């Protein structure tokens, strides 16, 4: 079974919430679901839509051909009708309006009528749907459930979708939610962010659940305050994360350099969107890669990873905390709107086995020195309040953290900070910095959210393996280089204008990648687009 459902309508009409609910219900029924969300930068009006891809096999991407169009307004039909598959169905005002009128409820109930209609088609158990509605809407579920029932009554059953014994209910989770619970799994204490699409969902998710998880979430006056406050909190011993998008990250770049100099752990969640400048605020792109790798003045270590789906977002976030805390370096998690705002389905969602240790000394010695030079460059960490004096210094400094200007200490400290590199590299090598999918003499290379469309397209790309790079810094140069060298044809896939990852690979390995499939219109790849471009290479 594989079905694609579009649900659309003006902003404010409820398409995103409904799409999510439909996705959950299919997950509950044991299906795999991928939910793509597309919306412009406005609050009411315009045209929002979601595409749900439903399948009995794992699915990680969407397409623009629909079995169902669920229309909350006429515009939805006008825009998308051309993409209705043969035999596809459109449900819209014609179906929903009579019910809404009958119920004398608000227009928003149209959503629920559509849900009823849709699941009747699939012959899904009404109870399951109503239970989901209860879970999502709580006390407000009354009328909603009525509307679902009415829609269900109205519908025509064509299939019989039942959770077969072997098929478990699926987890349904967005990239943002995954980043959030990855941080919780890693022992997050403090999350600071100034709102910015597409990073805000993490702020909202964590803020809402702060008491339940005993964490603190705060929105300071701007991103510069965010990053500096985060370093204050980190200095005080809190596991701290900040979140932003490109523009806010730019404002944090001085603070990033400070994080490196003070050697205070800091995890930065960077959700990319099309730029330069404000760009396309609610769309997707991967244009910040080289900025993330090189932001901040001076030379310093950082960890940059980029998960390819929600499950990986959990573990990479944990790893970011682990590496940042253990090695006292900043770690950046590079995501984008497509990962952040898409929902993925899994049989299980797992956290990594990495410990959530704080890497703070239990009993720092009285002669404690904040920047003690050690074999691996990592100074054992103490925090104020424990007893000994603890320091963090933005100026170059000696072991005690006092300001110095002389040649000898400068060299020692630059060396100390870079000494960690080899150790971090070794850790990363154990963390599967790349993943290989498929078989063949040829190679696709990509990173981040493109993974979904590539995996779903891969079966159509004969004799191609797919190398997903999850660590961009330190870069797994040897493995990447080896994989490239043993391949005949190599194609880079990137949601960007020029293919920044090709530059990175060249800088790290010296290898030039000649073929690129790029997309830079603010929209993510689909398997169809990929296959089409692929054929032209």
């Amino acid at each position: 079974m594989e079905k694609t459902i579009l649900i659309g309508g003006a902003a404010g009409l409820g398409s995103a919430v409904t799409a999510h609910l439909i996705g959950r219900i299919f997950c509950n029924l044991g299906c795999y679901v991928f939910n793509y969300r597309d919306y412009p930068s406005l609050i009411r009006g315009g045209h929002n839509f979601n595409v749900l891809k439903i399948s009995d096999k794992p699915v990680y991407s969407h397409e623009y051909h629909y079995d169902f169009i669920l229309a909350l307004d006429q515009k939805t039909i006008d825009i998308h009708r051309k993409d209705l598959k043969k035999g596809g169905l459109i449900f819209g005002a014609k179906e929903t309006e009579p019910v809404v009128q009958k119920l004398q409820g608000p227009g928003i109930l149209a959503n629920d009528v559509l849900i009823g209609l849709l699941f009747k088609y699939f012959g899904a158990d009404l109870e399951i749907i109503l239970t989901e509605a209860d879970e999502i809407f709580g006390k407000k579920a009354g009328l909603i459930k009525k509307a679902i029932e009415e829609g269900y009554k109205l519908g025509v059953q064509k299939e019989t979708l039942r959770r077969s014994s072997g098929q478990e209910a699926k987890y349904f989770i967005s990239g943002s939610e995954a980043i959030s619970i990855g941080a919780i799994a890693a022992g997050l204490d403090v999350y600071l962010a100034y709102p910015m699409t597409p990073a805000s969902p993490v702020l909202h998710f964590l803020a809402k659940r702060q008491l339940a998880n005993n964490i603190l979430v705060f929105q300071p006056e701007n991103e510069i305050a965010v990053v500096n406050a985060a370093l204050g909190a980190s200095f005080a011993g809190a596991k701290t994360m900040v979140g932003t998008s490109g523009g806010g990250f730019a404002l944090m770049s001085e603070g990033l350099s400070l994080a490196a100099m003070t050697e205070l752990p800091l995890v930065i969640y960077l959700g990319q969107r099309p730029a330069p400048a404000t760009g396309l605020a609610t769309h997707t792109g991967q244009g910040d890669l080289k900025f993330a790798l090189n932001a901040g003045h001076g030379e310093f270590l950082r960890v940059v990873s980029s998960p390819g789906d929600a499950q990986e977002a959990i573990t990479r976030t944990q790893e970011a905390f682990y590496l940042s805390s253990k090695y006292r370096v900043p770690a950046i998690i590079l995501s984008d709107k497509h990962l952040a705002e898409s929902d993925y389905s899994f049989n299980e969602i797992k956290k990594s086995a990495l410990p959530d240790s704080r890497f703070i000394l239990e009993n720092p010695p009285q002669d404690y020195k904040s920047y003690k030079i050690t074999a691996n460059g990592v100074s054992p960490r103490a925090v104020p309040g424990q007893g000994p004096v603890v320091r963090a210094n933005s100026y170059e400094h000696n072991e005690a953290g006092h300001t110095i200007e002389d040649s000898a200490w400068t060299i020692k400290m630059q060396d100390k900070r870079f000494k960690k590199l080899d150790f971090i590299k070794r850790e990363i090598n154990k963390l599967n910095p790349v993943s290989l999918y498929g078989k063949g003499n040829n190679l696709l290379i990509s990173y981040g959210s493109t993974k979904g469309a590539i995996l779903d397209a891969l079966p159509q790309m004969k004799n191609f393996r797919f190398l997903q790079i999850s660590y961009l810094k330190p870069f797994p140069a040897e493995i990447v280089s080896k994989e490239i060298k043993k391949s005949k044809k190599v194609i880079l896939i990137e949601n960007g204008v020029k293919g920044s990852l090709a530059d990175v690979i060249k800088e790290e390995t010296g290898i030039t990648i000649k073929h690129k499939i790029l997309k830079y219109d603010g929209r993510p790849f689909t398997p169809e687009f990929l296959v089409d471009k692929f054929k032209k290479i």
Partner: protein
Amino acid sequence: MIRQDFNTKEENTWCPGCPNSGILLSAKEALAELANEGKLSVKDATLVTGIGCHGKIYDYLNLNGFNGLHGRVLPVCLGMKLGNPDLTVLGFGGDGDTFDEGVAHFVHACRYNADITMMVHTNQVFALTTGQANAITEKGFVDGSTPLGQGEKPINSLVLALEMGATFVARGYALQGPYLKELIKKAIIHEGFAFIDILQPCIVYHKHSMPYFNKNVYKIEETRDTGNLNQALERAREWDYSYEKDMKVPTGVFYETKRPTFESQWPQLKKPWYALKRNINWSRVIKEFK
């Protein structure tokens, strides 16, 4: 404790005679006395500095310390309180630091009312970068970046603090050591955002300040009601940071009031996070996704 307990071995590189040394001394004495009075846990005290001459105090105080970026004292202070509410956080900022590069944070810090003491070394120049005019410099001042003369009136930082909601507002003078020490003690004891505008005449780039202060500084009567905002504003306006004519320059506590602290809005913020051992219940965390 004695003030010498706060000495470090770092070489003092302020200009000989710079009133910053007076601030350092008063700070040490205030800390020692508070510790002796049982009002301060020294191991929980942390200072935060900006970049500028003032920032060098980081190296001269034997205390937990964070020498941050230019202009960012206050967010670091705020973050520290979010990271460990038990810390006693002392910010030392420059006037350029606080009212040029970092004024956004000052406005909001007054509003937030976190339990922070913010001391600004007011010398009316960017001293360490060789004396350019800053937001507190008087109109007409001539310097390297403003050879035509500073075009605008300075910010009255006391007024700004009072209007934006600081719950303790005072002014000290670096050369009134014992009095400044008392002000620092009061500010530290105050629960909430305490701002001290410390007059710190730069003897290299703003030479006319010190004689002016020595002539015109006076202490606000002890008997005055410090709970009246309008009176505080009036007093704060007595001197407008200019030098054209002699005006009285009040020092002392201008205003003091109580308001719930920033930290108190989070019921979960009760003790330092680092002492917390978490035990993540993963199945609880992921429950909502199925």
